[in-house]
């Protein structure tokens, strides 16, 4: 007797169809699984046997062979349990094999026969739709998440028994318990109205949010760098549905999220001891890293100079390309990484450079610190602002803005950009390459002059010029102007990082 059921392997964050075939023939009772599975798949044998028996079915006393096809694809994790069990039941005639054809099955089994929570259901549901299957059986915890994919009927079950009942038609497929749109309640995000003083950093946050620019906050310990960065998501535009589904899929695959659509922009703040693989993704099987978890959101690196050089260097490709490629064996996996990078750093090892005489760092310390920060990553920071300790009277004053107010400005600026870049392949100013920048950034005469002077006097490098242009474009967008003025350009110059080549002083 032969039976077949569809399920999915998660390859990176993408679903790959896998057919579970079970063949039962007479012989000594054995149960073998072939098809390049990892340890979790091999152990699935014992889970499946126990689950079938504990659900009140019989495990066939004959030679059982299961194959996970295609055989060349490496399969990892316990997500094949339910499919294996149902295929065994179908092959042994305990559920109708014909009914199984319309279904995809996904989920891990417990020994008692319950379907356990299994990460990645959203990706599986997308695969189901792509494979042209009508129905997907998933663990109940994952129903709302899987239901985000339209065109697939989600069958949420709590146990193998329920799944079998659905197939035999004894109980009609139940719909997910809650409509997906109520989603996860937006958590009370920290608001900009908590901020007192900090006029410059607030402006920089708005510009960064409006143009999708990377931001480096520099300042002495305790001045509020982290506090400011945490409030950035509160002024970013909401995720579009497509973005939200992508974010949910990645978070689901990574196992850091269960149920419902993620509607808030992710904010990831990995600790500085993180490895390169942890940051951009990797491991066996490859899992998305923090950069992918921050997709469409904010990746915040606190104490930038403490991160390992290797980890920071690994961020270069994701920053540039918006995705990261991980090569494993003969396969290339792609993880999306369109995040805004926000970093915080002390200006020197002791943290007090610029604050009168409290800095006790020598020239060597400073240079070492700068070297740790410098290089290609720093080059990709569009904005560098110093966060100063607010004055006492500023702490007592009313807040300068609120997230709602700032967000309105950001949204208006983003709309202008979307209109301008409608079919250019970039979503915001920060994503423009130099070709797009040339086409879409109009300077008035004075601005051209100002930029020319800044460039001629060696205040800007070629790359710096490009970055200044994009930031200036965002400043004009925030102000609602079509042309970039000289003041915009000069402001962008002021918000840029200091030149690394400090000429004679660096000697």
């Amino acid at each position, binding site marked *: 007797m032969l039976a077949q059921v569809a399920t999915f392997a998660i390859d990176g964050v993408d679903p790959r169809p896998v057919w579970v075939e079970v063949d039962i023939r007479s012989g000594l009772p054995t149960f073998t699984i072939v098809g390049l599975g990892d340890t979790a798949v091999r152990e699935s044998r014992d889970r499946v046997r126990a689950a079938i028996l504990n659900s009140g079915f019989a495990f066939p006393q004959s030679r059982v062979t299961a194959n996970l096809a295609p055989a060349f694809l490496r399969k990892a994790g316990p997500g094949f349990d339910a499919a294996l069990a149902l295929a065994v039941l179908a092959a042994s005639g305990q559920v109708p094999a014909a009914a199984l054809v319309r279904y995809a099955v996904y989920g891990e089994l417990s020994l008692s026969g319950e379907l356990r929570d299994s990460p990645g259901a959203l990706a599986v549901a997308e695969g189901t739709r792509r494979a042209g299957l009508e129905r997907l059986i998933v663990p109940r915890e994952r129903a709302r998440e899987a239901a985000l994919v339209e065109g697939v009927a989600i069958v949420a079950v709590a146990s193998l028994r329920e799944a079998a009942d659905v197939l035999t038609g004894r109980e009609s497929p139940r719909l997910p318990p809650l409509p997906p749109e109520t989603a996860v309640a937006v958590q009370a995000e920290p608001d900009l109205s908590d901020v007192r*003083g900090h*006029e*410059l950093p607030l*402006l920089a946050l708005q510009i960064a949010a409006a143009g999708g620019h990377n931001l480096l906050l*520099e*300042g*002495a310990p305790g001045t509020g760098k982290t506090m400011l960065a945490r409030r950035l998501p509160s002024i970013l535009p909401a995720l579009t549905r497509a973005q939200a589904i992508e974010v949910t899929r990645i978070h689901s695959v990574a196992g850091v999220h269960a149920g419902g659509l993620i509607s808030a922009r992710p904010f990831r703040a990995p600790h500085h001891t993180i490895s390169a693989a942890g940051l951009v993704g990797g491991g066996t099987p490859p899992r998305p890293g923090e950069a992918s978890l921050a997709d469409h959101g904010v990746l915040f690196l606190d104490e930038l100079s403490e991160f390992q050089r290797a980890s920071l260097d690994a961020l270069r490709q994701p920053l540039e390309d918006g995705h990261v490629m991980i090569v494993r064996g003969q396969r290339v996996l792609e993880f999306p990484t369109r995040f805004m990078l926000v970093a915080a750093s002390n*200006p*020197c090892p002791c943290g*007090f*450079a*610029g*604050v*009168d*005489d409290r*800095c*006790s*760092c*020598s*020239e*060597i310390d*400073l*240079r070492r610190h*700068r070297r740790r920060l410098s290089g290609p990553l720093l080059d990709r920071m569009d904005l560098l*602002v*110093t966060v*100063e*300790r*607010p*004055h006492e009277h*500023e702490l007592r004053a009313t807040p300068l803005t609120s997230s709602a107010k700032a967000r309105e400005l950001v949204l208006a600026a983003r709309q202008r950009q979307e209109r301008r870049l409608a079919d250019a392949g970039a979503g915001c100013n920060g994503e423009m390459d130099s070709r797009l920048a040339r086409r879409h950034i109009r300077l008035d005469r004075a601005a051209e002059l100002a930029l020319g*002077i*800044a460039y001629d*006097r060696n*205040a800007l490098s070629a790359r710096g010029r490009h970055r200044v242009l994009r930031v200036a474009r965002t400043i004009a967008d925030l102000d609602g102007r079509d042309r970039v003025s000289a*003041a915009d350009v*000069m*402001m*962008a*110059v*002021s*918000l840029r990082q*200091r030149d690394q080549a400090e000429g*004679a*002083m660096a*000697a």
Partner: protein
Amino acid sequence: MSDEAAEQPAAPQGACDSCLRRSWLVARLGAQFDFARRRGRDLPLIFDLPDGRLIAAIAGGTRSVVEREYEEFDPATAAARCCVAGVETLCRCDAGYPRRLVAAPGCPAVLHIVGGRDRFVALAAADAVAIVGARRGSAYGLEMARLLARGLAGAGLTVVSGMALGIDSAAHAGTLEVEGATVAVLPVGAERPYPASKRALYRRIVDSGVAVSELPPGSDSRRWAFPARNRIIAGLSAMTVVIEAGERSGSLITAAVAEDLGRQLGAVPGRVTSRLSAGTNELLARGARVVRDAGDVLDAIFGVGMRAVPTSPTGRGAVGVELRELLDAVGGGRDTLGALIRSGRPLELTLTQLAELEVCGHVRREAGGRYVVRV
């Protein structure tokens, strides 16, 4: 001595044997100098002792060994070693030996020179000013060091310093900016950039100026070599200017030597509340000349109004009224954006104007977002 006199025409470019031997001895007794200093001996007095008494005074347990080595010393080997290291020598018997330095007590027997012996003779014969100061100079101090060095080099003076981190290096760098020549006096062999991180600066210095040391090539740094180096800096210079020195700074040793030699001594005033300026303000209180710019130094050396600082060749444009006001505010201590905004300036206008000042080279941004006025 009679042999040397006969040999001199044959080897006009080297130090005489007895000076080479003395120089070797000083380096050989390196560890003992540190020891003597720790026991409170006065270095200048020790340096004045003739060879035999010097060994007797400080060699201690190694005396017999040093005496034997002293007898066996071969000047030709020492000269060859210098030659291999690319170091030229100039001894105090030579007519080219800097006159100002001869006057200093305990002046080094031999000066080891990288960058050209004749060039050094010419540079040392010109009017020279020492600019010294703290290793951990503030942005203000570094900027002042560069400003002074630029002005003085522009007026044709030689800038002498020690190539240490901070003020010293800024002085050398300022000189090089206006293509002036500068003398770096090192506490190790002159062939070796010290500190090593100043390699690039060292190369630029010896391109147009010289690096000098009293120690033969291959000598390592010793504690005593730093104050000893300072006496050479002061001795070479008609005036010593201290920019930022703490209360126990080595720059104060340079200042003391200059004072003892009856040379001019100047200091750049700093904030009373700053630890970095404690030493310089103390010098000023005791009667050192106030140095605000290169003009003050020229006045001190040549008499008021005798020599003028040539106009700055940097050609930065004039500053408009509004920018001037902002520049004054930055120079007056409101040197961060926060401070400027707190004084009632609008943020966005200030950012724009600061960029203008920065682009035109009037201000520079430092670590910590502090703006420094460039002069």
